[in-house]
């Protein structure tokens, strides 16, 4: 079996540490927009990354194949491609596939081949498990058992574009200004090692969940051990992976709403809990008692997205920056306010959320119609 940790974490550190710039933009009315602004915004935070990783997640990307799983797969060899394509034909119905268009870009050196596949799963293929679990298992199998291939993303109507370089270089390389989506998240990376491996860039993706993340999770050791009890194996050895699995466990498997998820990952202090009304106290106390090992402790900001929803939050004492901007139906989340104002000079309002407070943008409650994103609870 291939050990991704060896590729992503060649020095065998406890985990791969990185800091970075984050930016997220969502039109909560569902209108799709070009990535030009997002690319300019993340480029404006150039100095928060060091050219060792950049990436984008885009939702509402492939309306023409909205019902198919869009697999973006990176290949390091032609042999790897042949193996994976045989594997895909065996496990899925292939609707369409092509090479992801690129253009030669200064700064992008020795890029791997990236192809995309639109796949469908017949009912008989996943008889014993849910379709979601089937997809996760296939992705894990490609990533860990097949040589020279790595799945960037595997959700419906969305994709991840990432690689080694500054984010604006990655955007140029993949011609991202030509794509449209209603939700974009992006990441510029400043790792403390140099894996030189495109799979290690952010966003990190499971199903249609993506995570971009700035920070170091000092509780990583126990978060990881806790998730292992539920069958998650942190093959990438990054904080981001832990965030993604924690979200998957809480929201998909344990069926908890996003606000509750945030109360687990950035739990309120016991003293704050004691100030709440009795019923809420009981809920919050129970969450901490049961999910204490999932508390993400240490400095971080994370922007998590899945189909129809974008969530941003920081650690509970806000040791990493997060700024929110709202303009009409648009919700912006950014590491720096300047990046928001650069692409939206007449922004309605911006603010810094409290530590651990989740900022949620959702297609289910567009900003214009619902009162506001802030202070939902």
């Amino acid at each position, binding site marked *: 079996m291939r050990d991704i940790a060896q590729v992503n974490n060649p020095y065998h550190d406890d985990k791969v540490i990185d800091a970075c710039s984050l930016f997220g933009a969502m039109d909560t009315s569902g209108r799709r927009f070009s990535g030009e602004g997002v690319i300019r915004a993340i480029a404006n935070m150039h100095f928060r990354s060091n050219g060792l990783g950049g990436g984008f997640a885009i939702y509402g990307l492939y309306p023409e194949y909205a019902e198919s799983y869009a697999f973006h797969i990176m290949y390091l060899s032609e042999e790897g491609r042949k193996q994976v394509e045989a594997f895909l034909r065996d496990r899925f119905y292939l609707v369409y596939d092509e090479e992801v268009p690129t253009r030669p870009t200064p700064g992008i050196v020795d890029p791997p081949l990236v192809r995309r596949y639109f796949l469908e799963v017949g009912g008989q293929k996943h008889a014993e498990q849910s379709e979601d679990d089937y997809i996760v298992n296939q992705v894990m199998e490609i990533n860990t058992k097949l040589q020279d291939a790595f799945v960037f993303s595997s959700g419906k109507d969305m994709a991840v574009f990432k690689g080694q370089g500054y984010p604006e270089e990655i955007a140029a390389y993949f011609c991202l200004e030509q794509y449209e989506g209603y939700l974009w998240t992006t990441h510029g990376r400043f790792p403390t090692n140099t894996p030189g491996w495109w799979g290690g860039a952010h966003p990190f993706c499971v199903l249609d969940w993506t995570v971009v993340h700035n920070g170091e999770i000092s509780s990583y050791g126990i978060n990881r051990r806790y998730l292992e009890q539920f069958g998650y194996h942190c093959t990438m050895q990054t904080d981001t992976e832990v965030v993604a699995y924690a979200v998957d466990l809480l929201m998909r498997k344990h069926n908890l709403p996003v606000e509750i998820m945030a109360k687990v990952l950035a739990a309120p202090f016991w003293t704050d809990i004691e100030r709440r009304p009795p019923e809420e106290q009981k809920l919050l106390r*129970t969450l901490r008692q049961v999910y204490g090992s999932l508390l993400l402790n240490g*400095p971080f900001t994370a922007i998590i997205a899945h189909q129809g929803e974008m969530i941003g939050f920081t650690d509970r004492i806000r040791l990493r920056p997060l700024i929110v901007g709202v303009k009409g139906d648009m919700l912006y989340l950014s590491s720096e306010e300047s990046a928001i104002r650069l692409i939206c000079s007449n922004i309605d309002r911006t603010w810094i959320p409290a530590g651990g407070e989740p900022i949620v943008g959702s297609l289910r409650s567009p900003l214009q119609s619902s009162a506001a994103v802030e202070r939902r609870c």
Partner: protein
Amino acid sequence: MKTYLPPKFIVERDPNRCTHCQVCINQCSFDAQYHDSKSNEVKSRGENCVGCHRCVIFCPANALNIRRAPLDYRENYNWRPEVIEDIIKQAETGGILLTGMGNDKSHRIYWDHLVLNASQVTNPSIDPLREPMELVTYLGRKPDRVELGPVGTRCNASLYLKTELPPQVKLEIPVMFAAMSYGAVSINVHESLARAATEMGVMWNTGEGGLHRKLYQYGNNTIVQVASGRFGVHSKYLNAGRAIEIKIGQGAKPGIGGHLPGEKVSAEVSTTRMIPQGTDAISPAPHHDIYSIEDLSQLIYALKEATNYTKPLSVKIAAVHNSAAIASGMVRAGADIIVLDGFRGSTGAAPKVIRDNVGIPIELALASVDTRLRQEGIRNQTSIVVSGGIRNSGDLAKAIALGADAVYIGTAALIALGCTACQQCHTGKCAWGICTTNLALTKRVNPDIGSRRLANLLRGWSLELKDILGGLGVNALESLRGNRLHLRGVGLTDTELEILGVRMAGH
């Protein structure tokens, strides 16, 4: 019979300072000081001295000092002084050698080979003087997940919490006072422990000798113990505490029962233990209703029934070779808390051969139990408490990082009360008034002062633990619990590192 045992200590008296006031005579319960009426001077009998320092501390003239008697045997690594003198004692008594306290041998102390991490550059350390730092922990069984009611989303989610947690014990600091029974220790020690635990928001443990009636008021901070002798166990007792602990074994004497000599069973001890005054209180080696794991389950549920499922059930075992498998069985049998007591764990009296040769280091037992329970996916179903040789907040932090929810301290608590670890607990003559029921001695522990010293110790450790957490860059205890990435080993073999689940320093 003339004893061949040489004196262990020399009592040094500074003739220029000694005023012959006789305080040392009164303080020494081992008869090592006496008044020579001929010369009208206070003199010493070094052969009786146990090195407890009571006279040194209480000499008003600072005239006393105790030194180890520098009596040399011919050098021999096999026939060391301790070995020779044990044989002498047995040749003179023909019995089992008894001793007090835990294993004092030079086995590796793993705490001293583990080092903690700290934040540098990539994440900030957190200053506990400026930021909240949370040590609160809840002991008890936790479900795999939290379920909310069908309507429970968004703002009114709190109304629809479906998951009802089994009873939990809240600790403000992850340190509790270990089980020490009334009869083994004095009522004043119990009262000191109970009051300190109440003040600091932690638990103390009655031990197996019941709960004196005047301590029922501290029930909310009390863990009541049920051991093989069932002394002092009745319905009111079970319901008095915050949790119930079934004691199967003790780190100082795994596989061995207990024996409180009749001389220590005073009127008060007799009432509390519900046995006749002056009779020996024998705790059998096993519980005679627990010969197997399913029997343990029956006792656990009998006690839960007796208390209407309002209290977590704890089961304490000595750390032995197959602790991991045993612990797994205990969790499945219904134990909400498991207590592992390592071979450094203390006792009021134990056969020396057992204390010195049976049981394993708590660090290894803790690591293997935590790992096993996680492998089996049942770690959340129980809390792990460890005891046996926890000496300071550094040991505490390392125990938490290896996977413990909390620790018990026994010896450290007694040292706070004056104990100097002289290992004479089994004699009933404790000069510090701790491990005795002799009224002249027990009054030496004043619960007002004793509880303050104990509370001070806990406060000191809690401040230090907050500093450690802050340095690691986390602000809640649960982020350290089981987080072995924050530990590294120094001077350990690969096998030791593997069992501890810890990487070598430098990695």
